[in-house]
């Protein structure tokens, strides 16, 4: 296991010690720096013993064990479960616990399986995050959303556990690597692939793989790889980059890996006899495609890269780059909502209790605001009602006046009529009297005439 050892080794060498070959404890001499870090090489008088340091780190890590979280994403039927089984030489998905692809999924789900792998005294707690149902429906818009939510929730868990007061146990369940399976169409990336990678390249290390690579002949494979890399660059997708090192040997290896990106893999659970050797492979009528033969597929490169050389680097990039991005974004959002600058500083290191206090205060202010609003609304309504009442009162008053006027008018009319009527009666009476008078007069004259005649 050269993973922890390698790290410590580099650290020591950067402190201007001459490169120390990993030797058993009882050999001398060692070089030590002078007190002012002048690289003077001095021979030790005796054996000090801090050459043992790498071994101590090594022993501690072995005791503690390692953790690694791997996410596999791709349409169903691309051989993800088989590849996981082949990579770690265990039956994570077997007939008793069938892989997600054997169960039909209606929506995209995110499932975690844990397995403890032991080898040579070192134990690795491997967590596989699977995404069954990805890209299988007729309408696949937003099928990446559950994946993004899962990654963010893991980051959030880690952030919370980091900010806690008691940090004894910090389980690290952040997704450290995402293997994205590309279907071997031979043409290029599908729109779904491009969308997914564009959204996730800032959150997790993406390693694109060509699945079921035994479909492609070597020439088709080359063409396909070139096309994919071209499209990845065109869309500015940042896949995981293998770091450059000082070591020439390692650089050569890294360059070899980079030339063969994206890796074309074949997985298999069955062991077949070929030329007397037992190898993992797939048996066809026309031959056997061997999984671990580097001329047939890039499986060995993937395994070496993922487990043997770059596991630590993947974890580091996740911790230093992706997690820090998430953290600064999350905390910046929180502080933007904060009140004043002094509070901000303390908010960065707040404890859950302070958080609860703040939330309570927020809640109280919200309640007050709501109360105020309700009062205002109530007042307004009351005013309205009053206004209405006053209006109706005025209306009534007006009607009353009008009716009175009408009544008076009628009264006057009536008076008029009566007067007229009286006048007429008087006239008529006067006329009658006149007539009578005339009658009397005429009868008197007649009598007079009569009397005159007799004489």
């Amino acid at each position, binding site marked *: 296991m050269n993973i922890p050892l390698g790290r410590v080794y580099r650290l020591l060498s950067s402190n201007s010690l001459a490169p120390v070959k990993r030797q058993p404890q009882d050999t001398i001499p060692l070089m030590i720096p002078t007190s002012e870090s002048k690289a003077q090489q001095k021979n030790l008088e005796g054996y000090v013993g801090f050459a043992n340091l790498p071994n101590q780190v090594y022993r501690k890590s072995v005791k503690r064990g390692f953790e690694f979280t791997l996410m596999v994403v791709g349409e169903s039927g691309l051989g993800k479960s088989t590849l996981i089984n082949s990579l770690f030489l265990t039956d994570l998905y077997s007939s008793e616990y069938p892989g997600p*692809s054997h169960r039909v999924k209606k929506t995209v789900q995110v499932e975690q399986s844990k397995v403890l792998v032991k080898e040579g005294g070192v134990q690795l707690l491997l967590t596989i995050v699977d995404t069954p149902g990805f890209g299988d429906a*007729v309408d*696949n818009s937003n099928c990446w959303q559950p994946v993004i939510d899962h990654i963010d929730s893991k980051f959030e868990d880690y952030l919370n556990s980091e900010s806690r007061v008691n940090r004894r146990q910090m389980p690290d369940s952040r997704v450290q690597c995402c293997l994205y399976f590309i279907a071997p169409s031979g043409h*290029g990336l599908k729109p779904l692939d491009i969308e997914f990678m564009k959204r996730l390249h800032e959150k997790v290390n993406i390693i694109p793989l060509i699945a079921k690579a035994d479909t492609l002949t070597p020439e088709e494979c080359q063409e396909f790889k070139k*096309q994919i890399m071209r499209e990845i660059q065109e869309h500015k997708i940042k896949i995981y980059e293998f770091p450059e090192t000082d070591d020439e040997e390692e650089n050569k290896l890294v360059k070899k890996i980079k030339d063969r990106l994206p890796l074309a893999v074949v997985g298999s659970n069955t062991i077949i006899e070929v030329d007397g050797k037992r190898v993992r492979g797939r048996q066809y009528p026309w031959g056997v495609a061997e999984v671990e033969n580097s001329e047939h597929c890039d499986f060995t490169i993937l395994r070496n890269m993922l487990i043997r050389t770059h596991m630590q680097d993947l974890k580091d990039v996740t911790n230093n780059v992706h997690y820090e991005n998430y953290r600064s974004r999350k905390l910046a959002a929180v502080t933007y909502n904060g009140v004043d600058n002094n509070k901000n500083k303390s908010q960065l290191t707040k404890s859950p209790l302070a958080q609860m206090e703040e939330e309570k205060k927020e809640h109280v202010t919200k309640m007050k605001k709501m109360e105020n609003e309700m009062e205002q609304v109530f007042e307004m309504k009351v005013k309205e009602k009053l206004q209405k009442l006053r209006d109706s009162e005025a209306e009534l008053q007006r009607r009353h006046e009008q009716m009175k006027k009408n009544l008076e008018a009628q009264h006057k009319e009536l008076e008029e009529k009566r007067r007229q009527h009286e006048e007429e009666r008087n006239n008529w009476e006067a006329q009658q009297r006149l007539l009578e008078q005339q009658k009397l007069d005429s009868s008197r004259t007649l009598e007079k005439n009569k009397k005159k005649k007799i004489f």
Partner: protein
Amino acid sequence: MAEPVVPEVPPASWTEKPSVVDFSYVGIDAILEQMRRKAMKQGFELNIMVVGQSGLGKSTLMNTLFKSKVSRKSVMGTGEERIPKTIEIKSVSHDIEEKGVRMKLTVIDTPGFGDQINNENCWQPIMKFINDQYEQYLQEEINIDRKKRIPDSRVHCCIYFIPPTGHSLRPLDVEFMRRLSKVVNIVPVIAKADTLTLEERDFFKKKIREDLRANGIDVYPQKEFDEDAEDRMINEKIREMIPFAVVGSDLEYQVNGRRLLGRKTKWGTIEVENIAHCEFAYLRDLLIRTHMQNIKDITSSIHYEMYRVRRLNENNTHANNVADHHLTSHEM
């Protein structure tokens, strides 16, 4: 092996006149020879539609089937392999000839099918196209002045490519086949079958057949159109083998001293026409050597007639006032 529809060699009794006049022989079977001569003069028409996601080897399979560059890509040049944003329907026609028999082959391609993120209703342009062809034929038929031979552009057969996931049919496949098995003959094939080992292939086929049955999808050869016991026997054998697991290739390699079509990989060469390797030979026999006429018959007598009945009923209910005399006379 089923017999071809038209015997390739006239019976021996034909060419040599018997020295004794045979009173029991009338000569009705001479009509077969006349039909054959007419068919050779007229030529055949075949319209095949290929449907499937991009990258499943549709164009390659067409080239392999007809042993010449008949696919859209060969004609229009490869250029940029861009996935189109919407489904397009592109048809390419070729006149090919073999042993004096001419055939007008039209390959209808559907690039863009099932490639988007949201594939709702991706079957609609295809159904519209098929119905348009039926409509065109119907219009020609209804004409008062009909052409002697109506050009037949109806889609006779639709080859649907199933991606070799090895698990089961995807929702998209089920939806598409359900809708289209009612208007056209569908022949499902497993594309790029060199991905699957023999056990995986059997398992996958069984699963697909179960799925098809569970969803009530009737693919060619349909059970209900078997005419007699002999047909049924032959078709049952075929039905046990669908969907065919095919591999296509238009490159030749040297194998055992012979030049064969195949795919060369580091662990072996896949021979396309070897039935131990893949089922391409069965598909070719079905489509071309034995069942081509049957496919065309089912298209014209069943699918087209269903469409025609539907259309004419619509017409009648719409135009009740107008007397469609020539329509009713044609209904006879």
